[in-house]
């Protein structure tokens, strides 16, 4: 899908601690190594303390803005159920695709017993994202005994929709993790591909 002429927009969402920044960095390195111009924007600092975390990833021949306009994300990646709904306005609902983990993390109002986690999240996703694929990445990360690999499973899932070769991903995974975690993350990447294809 990453055409050499058109800019590809990927909006990544989740909750602090889910490895969203790492996911985005790996993806950007892949695009850069494929010879594309790449931009990424993210928010650090106070916004990071357990809050929503988002990054904008854009690649193509020449990229100007580091921010994705609303309604123009080719892919919305969400590592958490509710966060998919929160950022759905960025998705190009006609041509874009939502790739999301239905894993649920309670926001403060929920864990402080002020309200319940909304029960209709999936219904809203169905309504607003006609083109979507659900990837139970966290659940599978637990199965391979590496809960932190949720992000790389999601990367594997996304890779099935992009044109980059597997070796480009494998190279950045090898370079991007400490040696003892490389094998587990390569496995997670492969698992993500299987989950998206299966």
């Amino acid at each position, binding site marked *: 899908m990453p055409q050499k002429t058109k800019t590809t927009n990927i909006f990544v969402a989740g909750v602090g601690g889910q490895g969203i920044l790492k996911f985005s960095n790996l993806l950007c390195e892949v695009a850069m190594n494929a010879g594309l111009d*790449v*931009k990424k*924007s993210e928010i650090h600092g106070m916004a990071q303390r357990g*809050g929503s975390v988002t990054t904008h990833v854009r690649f193509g021949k020449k990229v100007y803005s580091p921010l994705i306009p609303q309604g123009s994300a080719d892919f919305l990646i969400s590592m958490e159920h*509710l966060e998919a709904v929160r950022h759905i306005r960025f998705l190009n609902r006609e041509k874009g695709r939502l790739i999301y983990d239905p894993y649920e993390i309670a926001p403060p109002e929920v864990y402080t017993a002020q309200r319940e986690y*909304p029960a*209709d999240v999936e219904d809203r996703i169905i309504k607003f994202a006609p083109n979507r694929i659900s990837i139970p990445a966290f659940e599978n990360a637990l199965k391979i005994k590496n809960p932190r690999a949720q992000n790389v499973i999601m990367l594997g899932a996304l890779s099935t929709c992009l044109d980059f070769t597997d070796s480009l991903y494998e190279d950045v995974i090898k370079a991007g993790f400490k040696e003892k975690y490389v094998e587990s993350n390569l496995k997670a990447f492969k698992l993500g591909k299987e989950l998206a294809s299966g």
Partner: protein
Amino acid sequence: MSEKKFLSGDEAVAQGAWEAGCHVAAAYPGTPSTEILEAVVGYPDIYCEWSTNEKVAYEVALGASMAGARALYASKHVGLNVAADPFFSSAYIGSHGGLVVVTADDPSMHSSQNEQDNRYYGIAAKVPVLAPSDSQECKDFTKLAFEISEKFNIPVIVRLTTRTSHANGVVICEDRKSLPVKGYEKNVQKNLILPMFARKLHASLEERMLALKEYSDETEINRIEQGTEKAGIISDCVSYTYAKEVYPEAWHLKLGMSHPLPEKKVRELASKVEKIFIVEENDPVIENAVKAMGIDCIGKEKVPRVLELNPDRLREAFFGKKHEDIDTGDVPGRPPALCPGCTHRPVFEILSRLRPVITGDIGCYTLGALPPLNAMDTCVDMGASITAAHGIRKALDQTEDAKQKQKKVVAVIGDSTFFHSGMTGLANVAYNQSNVTVVIMDNRITAMTGHQQHPGTGKTLMGKSTVELDTTQVAKALGIKHVYEVDPYDYKKTKEVLKEAIALEEPSVVITKRACPLYDRTQWEKPYWVNEDECIGCKTCIRLGCPAISFKADKKKSYITPVLCTGCSVCSQVCPKGAIHAAEDKDN
């Protein structure tokens, strides 16, 4: 040799400084500028330090420049307020070695208390302002800034914003140009701003700015890009990328140097187009300058002044088209919160029960103001907790209203903030004697910005062991008689100490000392657990606002999420029924 790297704007500034042969870099951490020095430390050719505050950092850089070194100062926008005094004078003094001032503004206040526009500092102090729009330019302009600084004998601002600091792009990296430190030469007429010298320096500064005005028209970083429509856009910083994206058919005057303004190029653009838009974030700095030239333009009446720009907001400004918003229903917010195991949590929980007036400060602990703790009344700027508490106390002392008079006032400040600008305030409390209690939440690190060293940690930015300032000794030396130190994980003791200190009729300091659990994970214990047979569903633990504790509405019992719990034990100490247990209790 050149190499492609995927760098954030902050990292690119560091790379640019290194390539330019920079010798000394000084800063105080502050989002979004922190990563500049964190990247600089990766280049051993540059001496770098976390200074105690921005004023100190600025003067360190200025001193290094006086000695003929290329020197870099970096801070967030409000940091330059702290350094404003030496900054203004340094424009008069100029540079010997190149002096580059990096300010990272934060439109939209992603992690700041205001969205002040630091381009005004360039105008007010008469210092040129460079305006990179992406990572490549962050690197290139930092290098160029050193050259301009030396050529024109002036400090140079490189102005970033969050969307350049924390945006990554592909950067072509080159080798370092090694330069010797020129060395110190006594020159009082330049470096010692007695009025008799300063009068001449001011005249010289005006001349330097005139020369820079010419440079601004000559330099390639201010360029006109031809368009196909009769509209022109003048933009700087990241705004250029949005304008280019949304309106590529327009003519663009891209300002790489926004002050002084390249007036000839502005007039040239005006001669080519029928209308001119000014695209800049926050204040109408360029707009005002263009209008002062007598050129009509469309600026802040269309382009929003509050919060950062983005392609959507610009599209609306240019074409009146608003992106169709969809109603996805109610989505509960996910604001930042104190982390599980946060050492500040028990202190705030106790203060929320004691209900004094609580003046806060800048750091993670400002989050203590949020529900359910609601344990903070004010937050102004670095160090204002102590000084504002003093002022409130003095005012309340003046009232006739007994209830107001009896109010207790507690200041809450972090360790790094205390060394930054709390010490002078505490000296003032002692000197002018006000009955306030200052709680120094000493978590042994600058936590908010991502764990930077400070004078109380015993380590420097470059990883060297050094003297460790003892907060207790400092407070005593500053004239405070009653100084307590307590482990905030010991809930009962902390409560006793706070009560005692607040009840005193003299100034007091309570140091709640324990390392930030995210910085020092060695103190983590196994997760605690709730015995549902003992839990009465009173929600006392829920009032702590710990992300690891939730309330199961169906069972009316609390629950601890094991993967989130750090084993700090505070919830087990507040539980009135002793229903929360350490892991080993379960094993037994």
